[in-house]
């Protein structure tokens, strides 16, 4: 029977491969990575599972069977050193704990710490609108995205198009105080770590808890803030809605992401 310390390397590789594959298959990866990075994660998961089998099969006498001359393949010592045990603990414990406790979205604390992004005007202006709106067009309420209003606020014609319109807007609630909150969407560039926060201010009472998803129906106006025009929605109705399949919006790229969110910032191909 193989010794426990000889099993640790293949076991670690197997565990990493299994976690990567699980996150892909359970769609939990959508809360962590841009869709363009999903298939490399699956490929890496399979390759790590294969590598663990390979190391396990060669485990008996690596130097004879592979002729590998690297430092890993030196004849095994009688016992693993404390440093080696520590290395395997670092490789196994944090990733397992993080996979266990990680939710599918950030909390209000992170939104507060990161703050709303001042995305460059040209990046926002390049976004295709979710709906084609004509100036003077009347009800019913237009289903728009947070990004649509931010983009519209950048130009005089955009402001003219949306000012006074009834809109339906979906996002996460970030409380600013009584009768004042922001509807937040997160723009993912590559992964959740670089997510940028897009927000539209809403005036009106809100019974939906912080960071839960809400649909706001209300009238748009544009207010001045630091020399810039920012969209403000006066809420007529705020209702709780289920979290969408994909909580993030993206800058260009994946057609899957675009079809789910209807909102994207164009980006050249990777």
């Amino acid at each position, binding site marked *: 029977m193989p010794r426990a310390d000889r099993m640790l*390397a293949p076991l670690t*590789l197997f565990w*990493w491969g299994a976690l990567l594959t699980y*996150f892909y298959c359970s769609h939990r*990866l959508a*809360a*962590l*990575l841009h869709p363009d*990075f999903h298939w*490399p*994660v699956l490929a*890496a998961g399979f*390759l*790590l599972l294969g*590598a663990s089998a*390979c*190391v396990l099969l060669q485990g008996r006498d690596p*130097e004879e069977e*592979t*002729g*590998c*001359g*690297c*430092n*890993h*393949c*030196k004849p095994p010592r009688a016992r693993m050193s404390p440093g080696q045990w520590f*290395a395997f603990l*670092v*490789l196994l414990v*944090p*990733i397992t*704990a*993080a996979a266990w*406790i*990680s*939710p599918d979205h950030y*909390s209000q*604390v*992170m939104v*507060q*710490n*990161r*703050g709303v992004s*001042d*995305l*460059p005007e*040209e*990046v926002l202006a390049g976004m295709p609108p979710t709906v084609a709106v004509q100036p003077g067009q009347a009800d019913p309420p237009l289903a728009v995205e947070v990004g649509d209003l931010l983009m519209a606020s950048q130009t005089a014609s955009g402001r003219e198009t949306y000012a006074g319109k009834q809109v339906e807007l979906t996002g996460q609630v970030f409380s600013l105080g009584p009768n004042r909150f922001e509807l937040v969407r997160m723009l993912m*560039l*590559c*992964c*959740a*770590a*670089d997510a*940028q926060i897009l927000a539209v201010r809403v005036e009106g009472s809100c019974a939906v808890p912080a960071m839960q998803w809400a649909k706001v129906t209300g009238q748009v106006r544009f207010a001045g803030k630091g020399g810039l025009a920012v969209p403000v929605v006066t809420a007529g109705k705020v209702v709780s809605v289920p979290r969408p399949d994909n909580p993030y919006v993206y800058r260009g790229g994946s057609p899957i992401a675009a079809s789910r969110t209807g909102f994207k910032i*164009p980006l*050249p*191909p*990777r």
Partner: protein
Amino acid sequence: MNWFTFNLQDFSVSFLSILFEGVPFMFLGTLISGIVDAFVSPETMAKIQPRNPLAAIALSGALGVVFPMCECGMVPVIRRMIRKGLPVSCALTYLLAAPIVNPIVAISTFAAFKGQHPAMMMSLRIGMGFVVALVCGLVIHCLPHARILNREMLAPPPNRRPPLGARLSSQKPMGEDSPLEVFPEPAARKSFGGRMMGAARCAAFDFLDVGFYLIIGAAIASVFNTAVHRDAILSLAGNSVVATGSMMILALLLSLCSTSDAFIAASFVGFPMAAKLAFMVFGPMMDVKLLFMYGLVFRKRFTLPFALALFLLIGVLCWGLGLH
């Protein structure tokens, strides 16, 4: 304003996302490393290098155009290449330049700075990345290996150790950037299947080596990423010197991928262009996770002063350009 508020769940989201984004590229790097180990002999490595050291360093700096790799995958590749006889100066130049001097990063930088002098920012980023890598390569060329590489890199693999007498007689004075001393390969590895198995095994163990440092770096980056209030950084934008330095520290702590960092840099609207440029040049060369991963190749006594030197060099160059 409370500048530090830690939330374990936010930390775990950020930590996993950095890890899962880096793992495929890191594994690709270790696979290349394993294949290099199994199929590229030191003689081949010697043959493909230009004879002139300056030309070799310059070529290494531009190699990212043909072989673009992100920073996570670079460390295992250059570790193996140094072991195969690639001069340390060339390896370091490639390591620093490839995450910046490559077409994917050029396109993303151009897109991110649309409306903020995109062509200038793209050219400056690539040009400065190349120049800084070249300068570092030239400096390393003049240093002895013993001052740069860690003990494991300097020691021969256990089954390729020559007899003691041969080792003593072949000792060379340190100081020149000759390729690392290479040792005969074991005779056992001949068949294609055997070599592939050897490559897979080396890739697997390289992955575990580098993964250890990636985890530590990702954890530190995630604490900063989620717990520190961004206003603590934004308040430094007023003074160009302070802004440049603080943006480089931000790049070090955030550990962003070089293909996306330009979008983050462009979003810091209040900061001078010099600070944004410094963020985009320094970040791919030195960040928290790389600081740990470099420990697999370089001595700690080399890595920390080297990080400081890079910080000063890039800071002075960017500040000297006078971009506002």
